[in-house]
């Protein structure tokens, strides 16, 4: 008996403990390059490019950081990549036209299916679809509260934040915001969310318990078509990708007043912030670059050339 159990116990032990050290790499999807660029976190240079298939957009990591997920839109698939070996481990069908997604603390993936006016939930371990939630037209941004209770899916053409209760995957609220809401992010407590509206050129701050819009703030410039939004580590400021304004707009998280605009490359869409809060990475679509921003100076410290039309970015830190 003991003899049989020993290898099993050993196996379980090994599996649980290989929560490998984060690679420190930055991963970027190139929408028209059909690839993922891998940026070395210390040298800030591209160390590899992975061919992933047609029109990769959304990108994210498993909660333990051991798996990288990429939504390959034209193939209707999510591909699972090992962030260390950079090999594609497996893939699964993710509904029609998968675009943006977020990973729940329990490991499940919430994804917007732009063509189908719905969001779907997948277990990336098995590739099985767990739930399907009908939302507005052109669902886009997905955000999950850090405690995993709520999920926001934005619908661009229906101008709403759909608030989904993660426990049973039903809609608990629909909040009308500005035209073409694109992305959202939660505070650590999950009580507040910030969302961008591309066509109205604004950011809204929403009380997630009441659904009330607490504040609206313009991103300034008429060319500014805000897309991604991330919060600073201390939650005092938000960084907003300014689209065709070619800058990252820094706003006071309380008042939504503009603090500064950081010039980056052209058509900035994707944003990610490092866990220590010191760096923000932006994808500059038309320029084909990633800008690295030092958050204490609010300055670009490096511009990294990646593939064609970089779209999403995630940090394995």
């Amino acid at each position, binding site marked *: 008996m003991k003899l049989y159990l020993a290898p099993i116990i050993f196996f379980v032990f090994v599996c649980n403990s290989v929560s490998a050290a984060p690679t420190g790499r930055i991963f970027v999807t190139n929408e028209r390059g059909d690839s993922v660029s891998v940026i070395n976190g210390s040298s800030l240079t591209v160390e590899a490019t992975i061919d992933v298939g047609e029109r990769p957009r959304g990108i994210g990591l498993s909660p333990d950081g051991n798996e990288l997920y990429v939504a390959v839109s034209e193939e209707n698939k999510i591909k699972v990549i090992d962030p260390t070996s950079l090999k594609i481990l497996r893939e699964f069908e993710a509904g029609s036209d998968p675009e943006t997604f977020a990973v729940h603390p329990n490991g499940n993936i919430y994804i917007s299916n732009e063509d189908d006016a719905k969001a779907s939930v997948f277990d990336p371990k098995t590739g099985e679809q767990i739930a399907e939630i009908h939302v*507005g037209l052109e669902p886009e941004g997905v955000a999950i509260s850090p405690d995993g209770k709520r999920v926001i899916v934005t619908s661009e053409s*229906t101008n709403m934040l759909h608030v989904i209760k993660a426990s049973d995957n039903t809609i608990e609220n629909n909040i009308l915001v500005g035209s073409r809401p694109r992305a959202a992010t939660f505070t650590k407590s999950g009580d507040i969310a910030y969302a961008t509206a591309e066509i109205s050129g604004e950011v809204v701050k929403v009380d997630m318990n009441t659904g009330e819009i607490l504040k609206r703030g313009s991103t300034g410039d008429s060319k500014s078509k805000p897309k991604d939004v991330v919060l600073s580590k201390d939650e005092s400021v938000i960084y907003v990708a300014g689209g065709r304004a070619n800058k990252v707009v820094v706003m006071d998280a309380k008042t939504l007043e503009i603090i500064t605009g950081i010039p980056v490359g052209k058509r900035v869409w994707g944003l990610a912030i490092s866990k220590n809060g010191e760096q923000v990475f932006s994808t500059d679509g038309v320029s084909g670059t990633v800008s690295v921003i030092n958050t204490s100076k609010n300055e670009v410290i490096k511009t990294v050339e990646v593939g064609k039309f970089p779209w999403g970015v995630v940090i394995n830190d």
Partner: protein
Amino acid sequence: MLKKHIVKIKTGFIAILLTSNIAFAENIEVKFAYLGQKGHTALLGAQQGLSEANLQGQFLNQKYDLDLISIEDANAHDFSDYIAVLTAVDTDTYIKLTESLPDIAVFNLSLKDDELRSTCINNALHIIPSNTMEADAKNQWQKKKPDSTAKAQAWHPDFVKFAARDLNKRFKKNQNKLMDDNSWAGWAAVKMTSDTVARTKINDSAKMLHYLKTELAFDGQKGSVMNFRETGQLRQPMLLVEDNNIVAEAPVRGIAKPPTLDSLGILSCEK
């Protein structure tokens, strides 16, 4: 034991239903009238807009409907229940309709006549670009490419930017046709009205007309925020198309002076 479980689940389900009913207490029903040929692509566009309005409406408890009214029956018809009237008719019929329905927005989805703009009919809302808008767009492009034979239009089924791809895709899927200028206009008229109902809960035609003329900020899936001039013309970007290929967008970058959308068409009323 098993029975107890089932009961519990059922009570839970009822509780969910109740809360969603409370959240959706308000109920708005909105009706459009359409006058024009039944086979006109403007009608297909309006129907697409209607299905999208109802998709949004299911989250807000708002319902949208559209009545087809023949031009012959228009005189005797009671229009008092409609939020707005959509038209793809001839110029004379259009003018008569705007005169007989002064407190309701009469959308023009097909007529390009400049006179309809310069006369500034109070309740006329022109979604389709005018002849002058088309000519201005073409001229701007020819300043850049003198040999180009490109023509200006409001929409193109191959347009992909600014989520135009998505609109083209769902139009084709639902209506079995490619979206053209008139169908875009029909879609836009319904969408801007239903977006306004969703935001303001206005369900009165005179208030709707006033809101559309003075406060609209519409996302027509062409990248820019759209609103109306005092002429009743919708400010909008246009596409330059040569041999059925989109070659440029107007206002043409580097040529049009800001505010660039006003570089296309007539801006003010005839005195």
